């Protein structure tokens, strides 16, 4: 008898279970519980949990809100090649970041240790918000405005890369976040 032939006993569910199998099933089951526990546990004690606060929006509306944000808080032009406005919102404030074919707009300046409510949406296709080198990766979906609060813990220049394939210019899509002390 093998795995290619019918079970020896017609009533195979009455067969005894081998000891090793029992030990392993117990370990694996408990491990599953540990892993199940870790996720809600991290919601309680951990500092990295993506909020699911989301609103329906439209490209026009989201662009208007971002424009208003830029108009209100722009402090200078970025010294990078694109000369995008550098926008410095007050700590605790809202930040609007547009993802579109093929860039992120505008450049944002944050203060280390302060929290900011980021509003993320796309004006066209799906994009990825990949903040490097902090290694934070979030999906951006058109017509959905996702609100996530970030608290930077190190100062420096950060890049936002697109890591959802978005057509032939995908690899040109890059943005910038500056964190100051």
């Amino acid at each position, binding site marked *: 008898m093998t795995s*290619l032939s019918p079970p020896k006993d017609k009533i195979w569910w009455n067969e005894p279970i081998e000891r090793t*199998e029992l030990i392993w099933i117990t370990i694996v089951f408990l491990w599953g519980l540990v892993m199940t526990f870790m996720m*809600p546990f991290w919601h309680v004690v951990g500092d*990295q949990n993506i909020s699911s606060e989301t609103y329906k929006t439209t490209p026009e509306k989201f662009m208007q809100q971002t424009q208003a944000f830029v108009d209100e808080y722009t402090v200078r032009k970025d010294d990078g090649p694109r000369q995008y406005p550098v926008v410095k919102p007050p700590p605790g404030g809202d930040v609007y970041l547009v993802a579109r074919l093929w860039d992120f707009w505008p450049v944002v300046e944050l203060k280390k240790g302060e929290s900011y409510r980021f509003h993320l949406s796309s004006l066209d296709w799906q994009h990825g918000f990949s903040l490097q080198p902090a290694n934070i990766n979030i*999906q951006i979906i058109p017509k959905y405005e996702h609100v996530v609060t970030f608290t930077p813990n190190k100062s420096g220049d950060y890049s936002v890369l697109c890591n*959802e394939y978005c057509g*032939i210019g995908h*690899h040109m899509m890059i943005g910038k976040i500056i964190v100051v002390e």
Partner: protein
Amino acid sequence: MSEQFRICPDTGLKLYQSTETLIKANAVAAVVFLLVGGIYGLLVGLTRWPAVHLLPADWFYLALTGHGLNVLIFWLIFFEMAVLYFASSVILGSRLAVPKFAWAGFALMLIGALMNNYIVLSGEASVMMTSYAPMDAHPLFYLSLILFAVGALLGCFVFFGTLVVAKEEKTYEGSVPLVTFGAITAAIIAVFTIISGAIILIPTLLWSLGFLAEIDALMYRLIWWAFGHSSQQINVAAHIAVWYAIASIVFGAKPMSEKVSRMAFFMYILFLQLASAHHLLVDPGVSSEFKMFNTSYAMYLAVMASMVHGLTVPGSIEQAQRAKGINAGLFEWLRRAPWGNPTFSGMFLSLIGFGFLGGISGVTMGAEQINILVHNTVYVPGHFHATVVLGTTLAFMAMTYWLVPVIFRRDLIWKGLASWQPYLFGLGMAGVSLFLMGAGTLGVPRRHWDITFSMTGGEVYEFPAAANTLLALNGLSVALAVAGGAAFCLIIVGSLLFGRKLGPDEKLATPHIATPPSDADYEKLGNGITVPGTLVLALVFFAAFAVYYFINWKYLAETWGIS
């Protein structure tokens, strides 16, 4: 009307003519698409090696789209059709129900696959296999996938029909064999998968034709992954059925206990279809409760099932070896396994690669918060080259070596190369998997043509130097893996064309199926722990898993606060 059959002189299996021809057709189609997809894979891998950077951007995205579709969809599903016909008609010794339907299914799949390759090559569908709306492809792209899926659905119906025929004509007694049970699991999940696919692809087709104004991008992702995720579950169920089959073929092994192995298959049906949420862990609009519920309840119970198979397959081999008297020490049974037989070595490397690399990485990044660290980085392709390539593809390759003489009646050519092939391919793929995962933890994005950002007019991000090194090592591994993949295709196609034809009653020089140990042999093993070696391997696996899992939580704790 009684259909023609023959009895295989090497294995004693009863082979119906129509089953054999269908298995041949599907297996050959599978290997051809693997070859096409492998060539694309080589081009993609070399382009991602920064120092080589082979293809221009548009060709890179085209090739990556073609790669994903040809290997993930066409190679695997054609081969799975062959597995289904084998697990029903051949193992049960029954005629195939309505072979005409099976042929119609095959034709649809072939038309779909060819049409898809045509439209992708034309450059009008470089949208990746996921084709995330609202990015749009040429309508033929969606149509081709629908045709392919309908064809596969027909194949599943023929499989179920054959089970009914076998039962009615009493070609076997009692319950179906475990391998068939595994194939039933795969086929049930396949039906669910194809229906989800239809629910998402048909409206998308209509939308691309202009009949529908809009496809909601989030809804698309949710349903697409109900399809995309459960199709991975088909692969897992099918390759685990193949593991059990090979353990029986090479060692005459029997399941350690029928109940445990069958329950583990059954868990896949119960739980895994809902786990598509683990593809949406960093999406907006999906609540944490939904994400956690689906990953823990739906995924961990299915993960448990895979971990159980991961023990019971080598355990069944250990039992068989010990029953035959290879009983010394912890690992004598493994040391004395036929490592030069590609059917065995391919299967065992598949088991190790799937568990240690694919399993551990997949479950770890499937934790809701840890996903933040790696979502859409090359860590993800690193992970699934361990599951679907080291795991499924290598298992299917191993099975193919065995099928060539049995079904095609050809002696294998280049046996020496064949005995090396699983190591070559396995090593290369393990490299691809590990180095991509490494680069992913440094943030390197997936599906990305240029991580030096040379086209952005000066706005750049400089990855740590290690990222370039890892991608170069990946490039070298790609070369190894492609050599291994090409060797496989050459050996198989070469054997079918030029291998010595075996006469109808001719037996192979070496026995092609092991004689199972007797009940009395098994009784000598006693009632305690009969597989100490496997238990030790499992505990090593568990330790690696737990360490890796918690290291990732530690990494997570080091980044910005997110809430």
